């Protein structure tokens, strides 16, 4: 999922201060799962904002609405019946959702209420960790299902650096050494020989090296 964290309230307040009527839009997908911008968080932020402005003697009107998927034009269209009643939109979706709303409603200021953080997985209740950087050329098939691009601090492709100690990364004892994980997994699978294979310098064209990326499926595109 795409993970996110809510921005500090002060920053959000600064965005919406010039406006009287805010449309606060959540998303039912990733940001709901990582408890950053779903229906529940929309309600909490709405109350927090109204209280903060009330203290300053301002009655901020907040219309709350959570879309099924804010990165999808089909669902973003739902806002068309509410958009005229708002001076600005505050989005609790990831950056994709914020931009989709801004693209659809060009004359309306749209502000992000969360910081989109990474593509990750839930490690346990309340803990999410980075798993993928979307490099566009997946290596997981040769690294035992553990990504050295997303999970090795140095993005090393051919084994750990000297900072790997007792399975942990030198940047923090809380960070696993990706190459220790890869080795352990290859060993468990009986694929130790694969570790010896040299992975060549990565082709970053499929990542950001080639500029903003786009997928066009000729069989689906209209």
């Amino acid at each position, binding site marked *: 999922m795409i993970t996110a964290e809510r921005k500090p309230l002060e920053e959000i307040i600064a965005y919406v201060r010039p406006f009287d009527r805010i449309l606060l839009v959540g998303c039912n997908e990733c940001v709901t799962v990582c408890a950053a911008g779903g229906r529940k968080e929309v309600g909490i932020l709405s109350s927090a904002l109204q209280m903060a402005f009330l203290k300053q003697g301002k009655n901020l009107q907040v219309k709350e609405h959570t879309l099924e998927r804010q990165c999808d034009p089909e669902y973003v269209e739902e806002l068309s019946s509410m958009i005229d009643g708002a001076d600005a939109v505050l989005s609790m979706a990831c950056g994709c959702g914020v931009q989709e709303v801004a693209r659809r409603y060009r004359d309306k200021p749209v502000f992000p209420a969360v910081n989109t953080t990474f593509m990750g997985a839930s490690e346990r209740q309340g803990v999410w960790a980075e798993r993928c950087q979307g490099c566009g050329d997946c290596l997981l098939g040769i690294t035992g299902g553990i990504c050295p691009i997303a999970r090795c601090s140095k993005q090393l492709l051919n084994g750990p650096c000297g900072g790997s100690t007792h399975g942990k990364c030198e940047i923090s004892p809380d960070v696993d050494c990706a190459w220790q994980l890869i080795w352990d997994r290859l060993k468990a699978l009986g694929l130790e020989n694969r570790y010896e294979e040299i992975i060549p310098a*990565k082709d*970053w*064209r499929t990542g*950001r090296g*080639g*500029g903003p990326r786009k997928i066009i499926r000729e069989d689906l595109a209209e």
Partner: protein
Amino acid sequence: MSFEKRLQSGEFVVLAEMNTPKGVDISRFMTDARRIKGRVDAAVIPDMDNGVMRMSALAGGVLAQQQGLEAIIHVYGRDRNRMALQGDLLAAHVLGIQNLIVVPGEDMANGDHRDAAVVDDLDEMGLLNAIAALQDGKDLAGFGLDGSPKFTVGCSLAPAADEKAMAAELAAAREKVAAGARFVVTPPVFDVDRFAEFAKQAESLKVPLIATIFLIKSVAVARYISFNEPGAHLSEEMIQRIRKSSDREMEGVKIAGETIAKLKQMAQGVLIQTMGWEHRLSAILDAAGM
């Protein structure tokens, strides 16, 4: 007189672009440096021009200066993060480089290492601010330096296809000047009348304007620029002039020289891009009456 002093005293400056070799054979680079020394005020050394991997501009600048030719080196953020950039800037100063031009990096997709990772840690403004900080005795993390560098820093303007784009470029240049750029290098000038209009608008920048002169080597190059760079305003008339000439290479030289002569009253200097034909530089300057 140094490039900086000529700029300050309002003297017309003549710069020539010299690319470093793709490899370690520096014989041609050194020969060219010696050849143009004395005819130009300084050499501009691009870094990985057009995204093509070459010997670094820092090394090229130092080599040029070893031949007695003052150097101005390009710096940009595509290939180096703020650590590497700052480290190279300190190195540049101690190796005698006094002049920099902050430029945008060519898109990696247009270069010869298309699979390389793009860094882009600092953009042009970020880099200008880094240079200002270093000159002020601090690095970007706020730590004090043991001796601070000093540079004459310039910036570049991108080609603009229309008035709106030009206004945006000028606005960007204004910010770069505020961040420490003390001269501005324009894109190649083919239409002098248009340049005159632009120069008037650019007066508000209150820094010297250096016009780029691009040596047109062939009709094919002229057509390519005309087709792909609408902001260049390279006219069909100019293409035909080269096409009809009995010596097309010389015609390109004459056009470059004539353009320089006309620009003498409109800009404070020219940067001549000979695209590897440094041996033609003298002929261009002769044609310019310089």
